[in-house]
């Protein structure tokens, strides 16, 4: 799996460097400073992601410019997104880094959102994965045992419109009676709540899962259920390459119902899954950026992904998922942009009925 992606990356790099060199030649960032706006605070997941990438862009962008991460936290990333939309010049000297928390309000149609991903140029995207697990006392060993499962469960959540929408929707689609307890400040406190017994079903990103939940599983304090999965190059949700021994959500669904998931709920699940996990973080350039500049960025990203030093770091710090570059990223993000209106409305209705949350 990994190899295939790397090869694809290299292939992409070769093609782009052969075919597009004349185009990219006009672009030179020598002596310039490129600002990369991250709409979150220092030390958060998106900030770390950008800071890991920044030195590599410095190395591979034409002219070796300085790449500075600029944090612009506020309004759950809406402030930074709006700033990018309204105030940034399309000269290639300012880029934007979005996260699932930026895409969700966009998908849900939150009124403060002014940014519009349909207009921007995506440079690359980074997926991430999640693993759900449950307390052992229910005797559940795999998703099969969830068929007809009637126990009341509790899940520690940051909020129904946060990335938790995916776990909550997954539990709902599997027919579980899960009470969402809101107010936890993140997945870390959520995991501690699970360990304390305050909740009894939880999920972690795969990196946190490996370090923090694996030991619990070994001690018999947690049972792994499923991963959310990962998007393959045909747009299907397949097994997570980092935790391949667990079924992914569509498989778990099939184990419970004996058929593949379909319908409005599934369409909504997939759209939000792609926005929240499949292409969780992405780098963007403004609407009017010239094709040469966009191409310069995309080829730099392709070179970065092929850099062995970068690959080592991806494994260590970004969960080891294949990074999507240029058209690949565009194609994956299309899943987010082309969400049918009825799926959006389905989610809004579900949020209202299930959690009494109205999106304004």
């Amino acid at each position, binding site marked *: 799996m990994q190899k295939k992606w790397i090869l694809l990356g290299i292939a992409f790099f070769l093609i782009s460097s052969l075919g597009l060199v004349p185009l990219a030649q006009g672009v030179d960032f020598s002596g310039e400073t490129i600002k990369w706006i991250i709409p979150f*605070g*220092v*030390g*958060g*997941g998106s*900030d*770390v992601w950008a*800071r*890991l990438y920044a*030195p590599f862009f410095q190395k591979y962008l034409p002219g070796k410019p300085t790449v500075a*991460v600029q*944090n*612009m*936290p*506020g*309004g*759950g990333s809406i*402030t930074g997104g709006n700033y990018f939309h309204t105030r940034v010049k399309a000269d290639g000297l300012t880029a934007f880094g979005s996260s699932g928390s930026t895409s969700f309000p966009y998908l849900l149609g939150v009124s*403060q959102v002014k940014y519009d991903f349909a207009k921007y140029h995506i440079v690359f995207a980074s997926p991430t994965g999640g693993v759900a697990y449950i307390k052992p006392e229910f005797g559940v060993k795999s998703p099969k045992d969830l068929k007809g499962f009637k126990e009341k469960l*509790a899940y520690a959540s940051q*909020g*129904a*419109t946060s990335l938790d929408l995916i776990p909550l929707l997954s539990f709902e689609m599997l027919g579980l009676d899960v*009470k969402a*307890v*809101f*107010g*936890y*400040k*993140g997945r*870390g*406190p959520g*995991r*501690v*709540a699970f*360990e*304390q*017994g*305050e*909740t009894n079903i939880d999920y972690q990103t795969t*990196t*946190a899962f*490996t*370090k*923090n939940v694996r*030991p619990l599983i070994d001690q018999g304090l947690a049972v792994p259920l499923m991963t959310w999965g990962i998007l393959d190059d045909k747009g299907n949700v397949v097994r997570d390459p980092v935790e391949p021994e667990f079924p992914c959500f569509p498989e778990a669904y099939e184990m419970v119902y004996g058929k593949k998931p379909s319908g409005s709920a599934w369409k909504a699940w997939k759209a939000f899954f792609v926005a929240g996990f499949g292409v969780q973080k992405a780098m963007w350039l403004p609407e009017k950026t010239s094709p040469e500049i966009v191409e310069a960025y995309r080829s730099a990203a392709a070179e970065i992904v092929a850099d062995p030093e970068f690959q080592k*770091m991806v494994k*260590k*710090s970004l969960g080891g998922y294949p990074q999507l570059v240029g058209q690949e990223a565009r194609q994956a993000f299309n899943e987010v942009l082309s969400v049918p209106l009825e799926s959006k409305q389905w989610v809004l209705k579900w949020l209202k009925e299930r959690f009494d*949350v109205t*999106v304004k």
Partner: protein
Amino acid sequence: MDAALKSLGVIFDPSHFLMLILGVLVGLSIGILPGLGGIVGMSILLPIIYGMDPHTAFALLIGMVAVIPTSDTFPSVMMGIPGSSASQATIMDGYPLAKKGEAARALGAAFTVSLMGGLFGAAVLSVIVPIARPIVLAFGSPELFMLALLGLSMVGVLSGKRPIKGVLAAGIGLMIGALGDAPAVPEYRYTFGIDYLMDGIPLVIVGLGLFAFPEIVDLLIKGKAISEVATLGKGWLDGVKDALRHKFIILRCSMIGVIVGFLPGLGGSVVDWIAYGHVIQTTRDRENFGKGDIRGVIAPESANNAKEGGGLIPTLLFGIPGSGSMAVFLGGLLILGIQPGPAMVTENVDLLYTAIWSLALANVFGAGLCIFLSKPITRLTVIPFTYLAPFMILIITLASYQASRGWGDLIALLVMGILGWVMKQYGWPRPAALIGYVLSDNIETYLFISVQRYGLTWITRRGVIILALIIIASLVMGAFWQHKKAPRTGEDYAE
């Protein structure tokens, strides 16, 4: 033990050692600048740790964060301006001492106890790690709610003779804390369509507005120097002696510091107030608090340095940060490719010891350098304030602007400053308002979670009942000893 000695060797390796010193110097500078704290320090250092080996990066980051609560005492004592959120309570008695010309004494005592508190924190960190997990896990949301209430109960003792005003001021603080996004539901409160208010008013601005702004205004009105006597009195050696005389206060407050740091979610910004409230509560001769009682400096200063040792525990073991600066440190760990978790005590135990040694050594260097610097710096208190004021105004404006880098920061500083000045004029206890503000998010979040999860049965949990008894005892103790004293004259220690 082997790992401990090996890590000590690593720390004294020249390249690591230089990084530790660099971290200490950055930390001291940030501490001295009012309003800037660990979050800013971490944000400055984070970009440069990329590609470092984890031991070196630990020496740098922990060296920095360890000494902020040491040097942030300078502005708190000498100008009545909080050097960082960890030294707000130090103002209460440190600043009156400076007015009496005893700034050097207050600083000497503060640095001595900072050192001891810091070493205590490092020592606790080294022994408690194996048993830390069950303790952290014993505190669920209902218990954390009760702890926040315990913090809030300090308002009583900090408001002295004006309990009603104290409670109302705390209420104002809670309301300021409620502005912006609600902690548990996707709603924004009292934002009036202003984007700036969506995230609430930042702590730096509330702290500087309530404490620094009114002080600058009043000093300018008086037009004199900070020190009311022309010659500087007792020196820093007297302060050291004061500190040694009160070793039990240091011990108790260091323990408070470690516990508050250790429990995730309570937040480091109340530790100084809890320690300060505690020392008043447990002291019979209280009439000098607020007028320059050296114990009022010793208590918060020993607690705030001890806190950093405690704060590393949930960060490294659970990946849940106990304070804002620890949240950024956590990001740093990820940049280094380290996932915090139980493995920190097994496969990464050498890193843990590097953290402990860095913490201990940084405290020694930090306190030493501060004592060395205190003599020339205390001279500032005899300069007429009109010369200092422009500089101070510039600094607090810059520090506020650092919060979210928008115009809103400056407007919010002005509004908070006017509120603080009015409160000061009319004798409303500002510490009470600040405590309310700092705890409002915790109180709301944990109560909300407790009720959602357990209905009303959370009240019957054993931990909740024990904490309730402690709160009652602390309130009774505070009230009882207060009544036994003859009515005080002059200014209250609250203001």
